[in-house]
């Protein structure tokens, strides 16, 4: 599969990223290299191999349903680029 300029632009749009021409070209090269490597992997015979669902062979990692006091709101909001006293604030998502 070739990574076209359109694919990069589409992926960028889905992630709400604004790329200039140079960045788009750079991404096109990088993403192509990643996808080309998949072609190498695809040469392996995986006919009788179960698809991997997790990198470690562990399962049933669960916690009990017990409430732990929530985090200090100030500390959480402090990480936000924009906030008010009680909420995270983002540019309006509807018109």
């Amino acid at each position, binding site marked *: 599969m070739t990574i076209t300029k359109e694919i990069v632009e589409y992926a960028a749009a889905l992630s709400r990223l604004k790329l200039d021409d140079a960045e788009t070209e750079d991404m096109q090269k990088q993403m192509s290299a990643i996808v080309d490597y998949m072609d190498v992997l695809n040469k392996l015979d995986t006919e009788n191999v179960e698809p991997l669902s997790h*990198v470690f062979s*562990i399962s*049933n*990692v669960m916690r009990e349903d017990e*409430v732990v006091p929530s985090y200090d709101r100030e500390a959480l909001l402090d*990480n936000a680029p924009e906030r008010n006293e*009680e909420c995270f604030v983002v*540019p*309006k998502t509807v018109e």
Partner: protein
Amino acid sequence: MKWEVVMGLEVHVELATKTKIFCSCTTEFGGEPNTHCCPVCTGMPGTLPVFNRQVLEYAVRAGLALNCDITRYNKFDRKNYFYPDLPKAYQISQLYLPFAQNGHVDLKLKSGKTSQIRIHEIHMEEDAGKLVHSAYDDSTYLDYNRCGIPLIEIVSEPDFREAEEVTAYLSKLKSVFEYLGISDCRMEEGSMRADVNLSVRPEGSTEFGTRTEMKNINSLRAIERAIAYESKRQIELIEDGGKVVQETRRWDDAKGESYAMRSKENAQDYRYFPEPDIPPLSISEEEIQHYIDITPEFADAKAERFMKDFGLSEEDADIIAASKNLAYIFEETVKLCDSPSEVRFWIMSQVLYYANEKNLDLEKLSISPEKFAEFVKFITGGKVTRQAGKQVFEQLMFGGTDFDVAAYIKENELEAVEDTGLIDSTVKAVIDANPKAVEQYKGGGTKIMGFFVGQVMKQLKGKADPAAVNKAVLDALEKL
């Protein structure tokens, strides 16, 4: 041309766990914005979600109750989308291996007709946060208290043909989940939400038409209206030579119409991939057997039993049994007073009257069966009339835990008038005061009887046995 409406439902149900699906924050409703949050549910980088054991139990029990095959080896998938209601920019969900598949729900409709709705699948996922779009500036405010609440999404096959099936289905899900104790399913609070996929096709056709999806419907009444609106819109559109466009529409209940969401919001490319943060979950045969063993008696079986054991009509039995709490109150009270028909009378008249009048959730009503039974004994023993009893019953429902039935009746002098002398003298006084009505009676106006009885009951404040008053009035008039 005759049209057939075809619908499928996607129902999201919040599970009543104490904590969120991937972190230990409380799921309690309300609270100041962002106070039920932590680094995991606000999507801070470097955090690791850990699955809540209780979610799996509730989910599997829901699946079993809806006759599904349970997936023994479960995985989660990452659904990517960029919208600030999910701070991680993805939702942890299940795409490739939903935990339950191929179920069905049997419905009983008002006409007596039955219908079966097939369940395609049920999967687990996390709820999103709340967005408040400011009316004053160009900002959206985010509250993540609901973000990470465990959800199951029940996806039906396109088996619905009329709105009544949809509301019956939702009512049934609510009843089943309440009996299981896994969700309170309050549509108004958003703990149960339904998306309706709807298309129309000429009757007899086997091909599906183009469907639209309606979101944001938060009551059974609104769903009925939304379905009526959307079917009419699609039929008119096609009959006018137009074409239905596949789109997501938002239902505005205040305006009574739906409108298409902009195409940007419609863009659906979720780029699912296996969720690396959550290891797979396997469910053992023993666990599944255990959940089957602890399955409670559901509404249908309970209604059958109420009809058989207590002589309830099918309609009354269905209404009482549909609510876990109402069925509990009914059955416990009957155990204590052994008067099913009298208990039925008060539930069907007063309890449902107030529930409707005050828009109460039947599951949250608290009526003590002990006090209810004590009250019923006053009625069946002829100590208090049904008329005067209404006042007592209102207190029984809303008077709080300290309400004392006997003391209230005594204080308010609500005991039935058993003194036949008093009844007779009241009858005489009413007859003496209404010579015109007496003339009418003598002239063959037997309907006037009701007037005399009504007057006597009024003077006795509804506290006399209506049958005794009736007899006394008749006797007195005959003697004139």
